[in-house]
């Protein structure tokens, strides 16, 4: 077996695969199983993790733009003192939707896009463990995003006088902040915007949970022979840790939201202070979820950076086991620090001290990672490609955010910083300077693999410059604003507070940043359709995904690879341990059939969500519609269980006379 094998499978992807149906497709509910492999029906019913990943990415970019516009509105309003560009209520809606959108509809789905596209490829699998569940996650996410954002339309309808004129509360879009503190989000203080928010987040929670179950099973169970846990690419490792964080953290917020929902719809007393409900309970439940959530956001970006740095330093990742281990430790400790968001609520001395110490402790594994990344760069032959520039930006900016994090891990200091612009600066350094830069690095790195076309590099450098510069111009002054007392979530301020200059600077920076991000998205969209074609391994990649042809065929690997080393593709190309392939078992590649039912569930959820909010607004029959929506979801799940995975066989193209995958020695099949 020689490198010729890899050649075979990287060059003959374009040959038309031979498709044979495995079992007659049943028709349930008059819905024949879709077997189209072109056109929009293919996209909406697909079970291919790569297409799902691309759709996740597309939606994420869309919501980044929406969230970005909301951010710019906030900055415009704050550019000068006593501005009356937008009302206080609209301002509240903008920052609430901005935060919610960026976290749940921007960063998480973009991470999910990478999970979907990369994880099966990186572990040498043909798909995720549950392909239809994956489709379900996608459409459920889209439904949740739809429910959240449709609230703007109702807000518009209300403003022009078409809807909800009789309602007490006039906020049709969420306005209670991304952490929705109860009882502020109770029915006494906020309107149906909160209903949209509650139901929307619950639906998104279902999507995240389903996806996480799927990825954990995929990573634990579907690795190619020889792909031991300690040979997993770090990105896959971080996906695994993130998925575990999701399955343990999301229940807390789901239940908190359900409790709030019962308070609002059925008059229960979970957070009804006049009947003994405790606002602090909400805070605990929210942050038990909320702090792990920040690691859910950042770990995938850390994984991406851990892939890019070694590639462009031409060195293996420094201290791989330690990077993996510190990621897992961050995951564990992430559940033990939530109360640092609540230092000023009066937890008591012991609790405050304990959470203070634990918060400082969590900076340790984070710091370890940073040192490992520096160790990777050390002595490497560094190539400053666009992904590399973004990754270096990530390390630097994320570190600054970490510093301020350690500053407010000290409870007395936090008493000064809490709810001021200092905190805003902190979490934007970690989230934007950290996570977003990491994700952009990932886009520049993997878009050539996904679409087979190279992003425009020159534009890329410009983007990196604009984003990093604009970001610092926007958020660095916020440290100062916060320390001089500018409160967070204020829709305007007086002119004599000494905040005028830096607010204006921040607004200008925000527009620079906005232009940078937009440029990046334009670059991507242009590239997808018109970009310069590139080969399957343009960067000199290290992991299995680069060993597949580009664009990646539906079955990913014509024959399952047998992995013999960490960074196996790199070793395959430059070392002695070559990738081998499992023998052909003679009956083609089994592919799962597509399905309508995940899409039906998505529609059900969307209908349910909007109906719930309408029920909150007192629209007649909305309650029945909500039940109908939920029934559609149940029906979808039931029918999908009945329909079974189905499947058909694909014959991978073979090159006559060339090395066939099946002459891989059988002994290599065992780990």
């Amino acid at each position: 077996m020689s490198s010729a094998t890899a050649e075979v499978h990287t060059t003959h992807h374009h040959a038309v695969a031979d498709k044979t149906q495995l079992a007659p497709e049943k028709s349930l509910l008059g819905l024949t199983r879709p077997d189209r492999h072109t056109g929009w029906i293919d996209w909406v019913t697909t079970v291919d993790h790569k297409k799902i990943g691309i759709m996740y990415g597309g939606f994420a970019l869309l919501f980044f733009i929406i969230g970005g516009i909301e951010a710019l509105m906030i900055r415009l309003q704050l550019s000068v003192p006593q501005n009356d560009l937008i009302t206080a209520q609209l301002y509240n809606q903008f920052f609430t939707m901005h935060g919610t959108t960026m976290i749940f509809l921007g960063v998480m789905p973009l991470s999910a896009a990478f999970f979907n596209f990369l994880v099966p490829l990186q572990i040498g699998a043909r798909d995720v463990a549950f392909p239809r569940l994956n489709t379900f996650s996608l459409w459920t996410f889209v439904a949740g995003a739809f429910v959240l954002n449709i609230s703007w339309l109702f807000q518009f309808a209300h403003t022009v006088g078409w809807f909800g004129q009789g309602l007490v509360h006039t906020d049709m879009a969420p306005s209670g902040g991304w952490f929705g503190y109860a009882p502020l989000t109770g029915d006494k203080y906020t309107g149906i915007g909160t209903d949209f928010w509650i139901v929307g987040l619950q639906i998104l929670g279902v999507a995240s949970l389903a996806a996480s179950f799927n990825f954990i099973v995929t990573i634990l169970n579907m690795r190619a022979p020889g792909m031991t846990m300690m040979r997993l690419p770090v990105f896959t490792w971080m996906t695994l840790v993130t998925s575990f964080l999701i399955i343990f953290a999301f229940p807390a917020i789901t239940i908190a939201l359900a409790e709030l929902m019962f308070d609002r719809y059925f008059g229960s007393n979970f957070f009804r202070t006049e009947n003994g409900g405790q606002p602090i309970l909400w805070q605990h439940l929210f942050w038990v979820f909320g702090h792990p959530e920040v690691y859910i956001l950042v770990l995938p970006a850390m994984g991406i950076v851990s892939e890019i740095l070694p590639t462009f330093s031409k060195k293996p990742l420094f201290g791989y086991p330690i990077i993996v281990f510190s990621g897992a430790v961050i995951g564990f400790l992430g559940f033990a620090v939530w109360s640092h968001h609540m230092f000023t609520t009066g937890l008591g001395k012991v609790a405050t001290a304990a959470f203070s110490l634990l918060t400082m402790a969590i900076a340790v594994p984070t710091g370890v990672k940073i040192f490992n990344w520096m160790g990777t760069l050390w002595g490497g032959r560094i190539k400053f490609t666009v992904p590399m520039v973004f990754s270096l930006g990530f390390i630097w900016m994320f570190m600054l955010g970490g510093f301020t994090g350690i500053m407010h891990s000290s409870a007395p200091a936090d008493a000064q910083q809490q709810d001021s612009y200092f905190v805003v600066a902190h979490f934007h350094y970690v989230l934007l300077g950290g996570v977003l830069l990491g994700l952009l690095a990932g886009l520049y790195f993997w878009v050539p693999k996904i679409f087979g076309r190279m992003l425009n590099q020159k534009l890329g450098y410009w983007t990196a410059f604009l984003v990093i510069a604009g970001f610092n111009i926007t958020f660095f002054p916020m440290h100062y604003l916060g320390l001089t007392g500018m409160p967070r979530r204020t829709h305007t301020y007086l002119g004599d507070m000494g905040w005028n200059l830096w607010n204006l600077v921040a607004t200008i920076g925000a527009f620079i940043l906005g232009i940078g991000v937009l440029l990046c998205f334009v670059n991507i969209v242009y590239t997808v359709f018109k970009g310069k074609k590139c080969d399957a391994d343009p960067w000199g990649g290290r992991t299995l995904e680069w060993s597949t042809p580009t664009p990646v065929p539906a079955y990913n690997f014509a024959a399952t690879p047998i992995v013999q080393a960490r960074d196996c593709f790199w070793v395959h190309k430059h070392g002695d341990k070559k990738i081998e392939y499992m023998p052909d078992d003679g009956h083609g590649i089994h592919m799962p059939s597509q399905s309508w039912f995940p899409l039906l569930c998505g529609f059900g959820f969307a209908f349910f969500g909007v109906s719930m909010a309408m029920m909150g607004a007192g629209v007649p029959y909305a309650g029945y519609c909500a039940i109908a929506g939920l029934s559609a979801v149940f029906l979808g799940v039931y029918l999908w269980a009945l329909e079974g995975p189905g499947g058909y066989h694909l014959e991978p193209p073979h090159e006559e006379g060339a090395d066939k995958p099946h002459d891989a020695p059988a002994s290599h099949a065992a780990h």
Partner: protein
Amino acid sequence: MPSANPPLDDQLLEEIHADQNTNTGIENKKLIMWLFLASDCMFFGTLISTHLIYRKLYPFGHPEEGAVNITGTFDIELTSFSTFILLMSSFLMALAVSSMHKGAIQSFRNYTFGVIIFGLIFLAGQVYEFQHFYHGQGWYDWKVSSNAGQVIVGNEKNKLLFHDVANTAAAKEGFGHEQFGLELLSFTPAEGADLAHPPITFKYEVELPDEVGNAPETFYGEYIYNPTDPHASQVVVLSEIPPPPVIEEAKEAPKEEASDDTAKADSGGKTDASEKAETTEEAEAPAEASETKDVTAAQEQTEAAEEHVAESTEHTEAPNEHATEKHTEDTHNEAHPHTHTPAPTSMAEVTKAAKETFKHSNYGFELNEFKQVQVVPGLDLKTSVFGSTFYVMTGTHGTHVAIGVLWLFSMLVYSYSGRLTPRHAVDVEIAGLYWHFVDIVWIVIFTVVYLVEYI
């Protein structure tokens, strides 16, 4: 019934093949179920912690005393029984899984059927419990009498669902619907009754509710039925009803006329007298609230009761004196508009119609007095923190059980249609995992939510 296994098709082989090759050796389906259960632990953990936090924070289950009476509300015997049933269902589930592994599809069906039935019993228990808790419990003193003066007094502790309510007005209405607990034992045409010569006389026998203080177990009389104008029919109570006993039935004088729905009572509840009571006759009686167990209170009560009895004797004197005489009474106002009834054709039909009107006239009795003496307030989402946390938590669990029942039911059905065969043993095993988990969660809830209330 397909009992023989159909041959393996390609697709199945492929699946089996794929699952055996997982890196962990655990089938994908099973692993995802474990993960789901891990996550579900957090769901229930959050719900149970919410409940316990509030429980600890509010010793009365609510900031104010009296909004709930937890041990008074709980029916621990019933819940223990349900818990036992659920536990046994888990046992059956384990048997079902192992039969499927052995390929014994018929015993799989039997056991699964058992699990479904037990699950349904548990759910029925929960529905009953919720209903029961929601309505609360009330204990009432009541008095019914015929117009001619026979009086029955009682202490309604009726176990019937709709009586068992904290709300006096609702309890009273329910009591009326149930004919004051009177039960018709027999209803037959009297000797010589003749269709052609109305009115027709029927003999009847009625049983009294159990906890009635003064009356014989049964009493009898005559019902003189007027087929052309049923409203003009007459009831004649023939048997003797002794005077009401003097002390046992007395509780206390009512405090005030109650009309609002939310019954508020002391949280002690079990023996406390209600602040809310309703009576038709004794509205001006002195208001006092006292505890029956308290000695002085008991004395006061005895006095009050004597007064009460003195009053009631006035009413009951007449029937006692003339018990052997025939007393007739009009069940309804004579001037009641007549409904035209078609001429009856057979005796059986007339008997049926007469029985119906007799029943609607409450066997000739009318409710004179109905007052609450003790109450356990109804538990709902709105009135207390305990109610909120309790219903949402147990309701979530009940939803899990219901989904499990549906799942197993589908499996049972598909085992008959041939879709589910011993080769799908792993599917059954997964359903089993789910079922055991739901059961374990219930054990936890039963312990930390129900049982701890009794220590």
